[in-house]
């Protein structure tokens, strides 16, 4: 009886959207599902607004009644919406719709897809539609159709195509020998393309890990190059930066919710100031008294790091705190079917490079930079020339710590923020300094990205742990050849 009613409704092309919506609202879930399936097979451009509203969980824009949707219904709505969007006159809308259909299209939609495929003018949409169609055609009864579909799938680099082909190659799935052989070739093709995407993806996450290491190691290299001290509390400067970001987020949420979108930008100066301030205070009170005793400094700064970690643990708790990405940092660019470059990571890479550039300019183009370099090269001579070495030490230490604070902001956008955050990055950033050579910006740059990429490329092949150990071994071997790091200054070594 109901079925008949649907058909009647569908046969009334002039039926108002409101009535369809009303009907959908009152129908049972099972009825809603079959309604959606019918709509998907026979799309009507007039239904588009309704479907878009359904997706928002309502039947009309100013209707307050809530729809109760389960996951299956949501999927069906997406599918039906895509089906309707194919009727759009904008090519990019059709492209997104076709990509959606590749995943969700049902056999009932085949006739419709076939028609659109034949009449599609845009090449990219045409190809995407072809793929969606091929996915469906794998279930066709004629071997010739399946063969064509299999070949078409082989030309894509889609993870979905791989699952479909693999399913096809299961023992009793495909009976036709020719199709099986074609499927095997296609699968190999797809896998090759997917591998490229995977490797690129790993290299990209390596780059983003590298850019965080870079921010951590940059400050370390400055303080080590300048003062000859290893700051074991450097990782905690990163942590302070990340917690500053968290604080900024919380405060904005409470007092200025309008500006919450831009909280990472506001957090940058705050984190820099907090970390740099703590760094300068430490330099004045503790580290200053230990110059010329690098090993003691190492122990004292470790003590500082213990205190900082425990303090944060007492104030914020031992659990990770929640730092969320603003909308403009979520999502990403789809480069290959299996390669998405997330915006937050892209921004961080760019940010790290910008910080390196700024640091370079600061060290090479300003009075402070000149003083820093002078003190690095010959402390006594610089002091004789009227450079206030104590002040330079303090400022340089502040700069190094501040850069780590910036690193903390970056880190908060991609990783967990907890009291132990600094500890997990500090050893890697030391290795960057060791590998890159002391006080060498270029060396730090290459070492950070190299280490990051090597880490991420090795991780899936031999596991994260073995990868780390292997990298450590490689660094030890590398230092055999180049004891001064990648970009060492050659010259008379003063003992």
């Amino acid at each position, binding site marked *: 009886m109901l079925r008949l009613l649907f058909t009647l409704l569908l046969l009334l092309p002039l039926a108002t959207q409101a009535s369809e919506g009303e009907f959908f609202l009152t129908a049972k879930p099972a009825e809603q599902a079959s309604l959606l399936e019918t709509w998907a097979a026979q799309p009507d451009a007039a239904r588009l607004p309704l479907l878009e509203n359904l997706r928002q969980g309502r039947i009309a824009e100013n209707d307050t009644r809530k729809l109760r949707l389960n996951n299956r219904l949501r999927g069906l709505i997406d599918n039906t919406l895509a089906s309707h969007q194919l009727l759009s006159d904008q090519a990019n809308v059709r492209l997104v719709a076709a990509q959606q259909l590749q995943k969700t299209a049902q056999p009932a939609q085949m006739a419709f897809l076939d028609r659109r495929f034949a009449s599609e003018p845009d090449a990219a949409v045409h190809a995407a539609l072809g793929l969606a169609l091929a996915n469906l055609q794998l279930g066709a009864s004629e071997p010739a159709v399946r063969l064509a579909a299999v070949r078409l799938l082989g030309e894509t680099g889609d993870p979905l195509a791989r699952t479909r082909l693999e399913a096809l190659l299961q023992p009793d799935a495909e009976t036709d020998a020719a199709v099986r052989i074609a499927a095997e070739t296609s699968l190999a093709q797809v896998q090759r393309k997917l591998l490229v995407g995977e490797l690129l993806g790993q290299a990209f996450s390596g780059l983003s890990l590298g850019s965080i290491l870079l921010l951590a190691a940059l400050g370390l290299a400055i303080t080590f190059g300048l003062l000859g001290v290893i700051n074991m509390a450097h990782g905690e400067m990163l942590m302070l930066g990340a917690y500053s970001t968290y604080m900024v987020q919380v405060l904005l949420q409470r007092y200025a919710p309008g500006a919450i979108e831009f909280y990472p930008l506001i957090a940058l100066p705050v984190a820099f100031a907090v970390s740099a301030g703590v760094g300068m205070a430490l330099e004045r009170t503790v580290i200053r008294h230990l110059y010329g005793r690098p090993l003691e400094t190492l122990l004292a700064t470790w003590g500082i790091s213990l205190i900082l970690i425990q303090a944060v643990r007492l104030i914020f708790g031992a659990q990770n705190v929640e730092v969320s990405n603003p909308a403009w940092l979520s999502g990403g660019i789809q480069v290959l079917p299996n390669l998405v470059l997330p915006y937050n990571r892209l921004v961080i890479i760019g940010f790290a490079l910008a910080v390196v550039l700024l640091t370079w300019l600061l060290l090479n183009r300003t009075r402070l930079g000149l003083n820093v370099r002078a003190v690095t090269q010959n402390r006594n001579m610089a002091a004789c020339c009227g450079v206030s070495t104590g002040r330079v030490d303090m400022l340089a230490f502040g700069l190094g710590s501040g850069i780590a604070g910036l690193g903390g902001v970056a880190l908060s956008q991609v990783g967990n923020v907890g009291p132990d955050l600094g500890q997990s990055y500090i050893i890697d950033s030391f290795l960057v300094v060791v590998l890159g050579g002391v006080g060498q910006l270029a060396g730090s740059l290459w070492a950070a990205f190299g280490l990051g990429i090597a880490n991420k490329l090795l991780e899936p092949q031999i596991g994260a742990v073995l990868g780390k150990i292997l990298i450590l071994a490689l660094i030890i071997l590398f230092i055999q050849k180049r004891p001064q790091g990648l970009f060492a200054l*050659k010259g*008379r070594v003063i*003992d």
Partner: protein
Amino acid sequence: MRSVPPVHPEFMLEPIFDQIGSGREAIGLGRRREAGLDTRHGTVLSLEGISVSFDGFKALNDLNLYIGVGELRCIIGPNGAGKTTMMDVITGKTRPDSGTAYFGDTLDLTRMSECQIAQAGIGRKFQKPTVFEALTVFENLELALKADKSVWASLVARLSGEQRQRIEEVLATLRLLPLAQRQAGLLSHGQKQFLEIGMLLVQEPRLLLLDEPVAGMTDAETEFTAELFRSLAGHHSLMVVEHDMGFVGSIADHVTVLHQGSVLAQGSLAQVQEDERVVEVYLGR
């Protein structure tokens, strides 16, 4: 007291009894030298075509230098002339980009490590006196003393009476005997200089490289050092880098001027000082 470099060093092997505590006694004159070093051609050190560059800057540029057996050679030259780099090359601290460096006729210095070179018989005194500051003066000399220097030997080593006597002789010569049990870090600058020279002496090297040995010494100490070096020449070969022309004049008959990494002039001090190019280099243009 000035001794002329002998033509055949073997003739100097017979013991000469001098008053106890003099430099001659201290350096073990009359003791049989080890047979290892082949110096049949009369040169203890030959550097040929040595070039070293640091990031494009040529610290040494096609340097040729020969030191005869028993010779006392002074090296002078303005700052940055490559004097210290040359010593680094000889002692194995820096490897030359090109050129050969032979100790005696057979030992290729460019293929030996620092400690091998030291064991072969080249001793070096640094510009800044470096001694083992936490150890006593006596212990400093004990470590430098010519002996088996392997790890195992050091575990079981006991000083023989002879060795102890030898250390005390050197200490007496250098007027450090009263300070034998003093920690070396507590010595004055000049005393450290002497201690380092003493460490060189007990090492019994064939060739001594001395980088600014009288820097920071009083006039009397400088005079004493000059006398000491003169007495060493003949039995040891010495290469002294020094800026103090008075000191150079009082010890050397042979002077080499380095400039921009190569030899500018050679000869007696008087000859060298008259050379126009040398005058130009020193006085500026």
